[in-house]
């Protein structure tokens, strides 16, 4: 286990290093300086600004400095937001994004598992078809389309929830639903397949033979085993929530990281773009690692012991 973890950890560091390097060099390739929008500045002043932020140093020096400060946890300062450190800027915005992401994940997992389970138990009935329909819709339609339609029909037309902004729990309802549609559909489809698989296995027949009730079989015996593989899809789902959060936060005007990212892209705010990229990449690799370890812990059949797995 320790060897496996170490190996995974090294991979993680390599990936992050590559992401940081790629991000850095691509950012340098972009034409235009972040100060072009400051039209009032004279050439001398612009040069002074470039000098101050070290943008005139040779590229390898800039790269080295960036990497050095990165290791020490410093992501530089934003060009656009009055020299606010990027770490602080992102730190202030991580709250809404985290709340939204967690809510969507929990809602997605619960509803998805529920839909998948009932459609497996009631195979080929209208319940099954209904939940399959929801799964296909949720998987196919991009979250920003859902967000737009929910915003228009539920918030604007019916007025049940606030249209946008982020001021209290009721403001989180529509964004959470829009973001959760994808997790719901993936979890439901996966759960249905797993559940049908488990229900066909011998130990379920044994449970039936010994006279266990329908609920005992489906909840105590089948559901617990079917849940194990669902953990594996949670990683990719969390990642899809990151993508979704960009547009959802933009649509609903939520002061989260995604909204910041979209804004920074349009204003050439390099340090913020790089910082956000690294944050996303770090989240991504950590989530994948956690899911892999969790999977090993939950399912005794694939437990990694003493590095023999490789």
């Amino acid at each position, binding site marked *: 286990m320790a060897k496996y973890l170490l190996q995974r950890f090294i*991979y*993680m560091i*390599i*990936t992050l290093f*590559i*992401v940081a390097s*790629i*991000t850095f060099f*691509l*950012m340098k*390739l*972009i034409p235009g300086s972040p100060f072009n929008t400051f039209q009032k500045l004279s050439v001398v002043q612009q040069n002074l600004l470039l000098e101050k932020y070290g943008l005139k140093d040779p590229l390898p020096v800039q790269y080295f400095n960036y990497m050095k400060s990165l290791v020490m946890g410093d992501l530089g300062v934003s060009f656009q937001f009055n020299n606010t450190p990027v770490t602080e800027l992102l730190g202030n915005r991580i709250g809404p994004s985290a709340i939204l992401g967690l809510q969507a994940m929990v809602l997605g997992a619960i509803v998805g598992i529920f839909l998948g389970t009932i459609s497996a138990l009631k195979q080929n009935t209208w319940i099954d078809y209904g939940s399959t329909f929801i799964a*296909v*819709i949720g*998987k*196919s*339609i*991009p979250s*920003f*389309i859902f967000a*737009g*339609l929910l*915003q*228009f029909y539920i918030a*604007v037309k019916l007025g049940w929830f606030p249209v946008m902004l982020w001021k209290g729990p009721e403001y989180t309802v529509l964004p959470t639903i829009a973001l959760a549609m994808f997790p719901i559909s993936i979890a439901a489809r996966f759960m249905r397949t797993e559940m049908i698989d488990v229900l066909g296995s011998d130990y379920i027949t044994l449970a039936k033979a010994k006279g266990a009730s329908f609920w005992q079989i489906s909840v105590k015996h089948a559901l617990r085993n079917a849940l194990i593989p669902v953990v594996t899809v949670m990683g990719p789902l969390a*990642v899809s929530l*990151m*993508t979704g959060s*960009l*547009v959802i936060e*933009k*649509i609903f005007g939520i002061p989260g990281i995604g909204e910041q990212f*979209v804004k920074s*892209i*349009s204003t050439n705010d390099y340090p913020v*773009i790089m910082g956000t*990229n690294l944050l*996303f*990449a770090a989240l*991504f*690799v950590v989530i*994948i690692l956690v899911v892999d370890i969790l999977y090993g812990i939950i399912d005794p059949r694939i437990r990694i012991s003493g590095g023999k797995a490789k």
Partner: protein
Amino acid sequence: MINKENTISKDMFAPAHVDPSKSEKIAKPSLNFWQDSWFRVRKNKAAVVSMVILVILIIMAFVGPLLSPYASDTQNTKHNNLPPRIQGLEDVHWLPFDGTLTRRDGAVYNAYEVRKIDAYYWFGTDNLGRDLFARTWEGTQVSLFIAFMAALIDMLIGVSYGAISGYLGGRTDSIMQRIIEVIVGIPNLIVVVLMIIVLKPGIMPIIIALSITGWTSMARVVRGQVLKFKGQEFVLAAKTLGASDTSIIFKHMIPNMFGVIIINTMFSIPSAIFFEAFLSFIGLGLQDPHSSLGTLVNDGFVSMIAFPYQMIIPSVMIALIMVCFNLVADGLRDALDPKMRD
């Protein structure tokens, strides 16, 4: 069970007449792989309906702009923000094609009569007075083009990479696989966004950006298949007959994995459509006067409350295309993948 005893009579046990000349007769016509797959796809009603809808949409994407009397890029500011109105359907008020709009206070009025305009814009017009019918279909055309190109490039890179990696094996294989592992470890959102920022938004940059990350799953699947075929007799036979490595890979192995390649490509089309719409939505998509479905939705959002049709029509179009592609892909997977057969 017991009651059935009395219904069994002796004449039910007459010996069957066996004709030795017919014992080898094949009852059903022999089907090749494609006929068999088509037979299976046909049984999946959702996939068939989706295929028909997709064909109609693809035809409309090319024919649609010609049907409309207005060009997609002609601005007519006098006719801006007009709601959809279709001849014949304008008196059917439960359909959204009667040319009416709703004011903030809930009052419904006919925009065409109020503004004294005698014209029919089937999907309405945008804030510059451009015909949305033509723009929607042209947007569909662009979105589909990007998706097909991205999928095609994914397929080319993925198949070659996977085939080379699997066929050569050894150290080459492990290096190529480590590279894939690192690429998969980077969220493709980041790569795509960065590439677009560097390359400047446009049709080609979007296709390139989507191709950079899209091919990994195809490469993995193809590598697995090549590894499976590598030890089989037909490959050995080809090798003995002096076939070159290239012709073994492309003439002997790849035709045997068309099924998985098609399935994988079919799944990468909707994901390319999604990413294109997504990029347009965060402002990294096509720039005016070009339009894709993503940019149309994005433009529509600006005036969603006053002119909802500007957002809803392209949204519905994206939704329809995505659902249909996913259903067709599911249907093909069930039909072509031997593991999924019942």
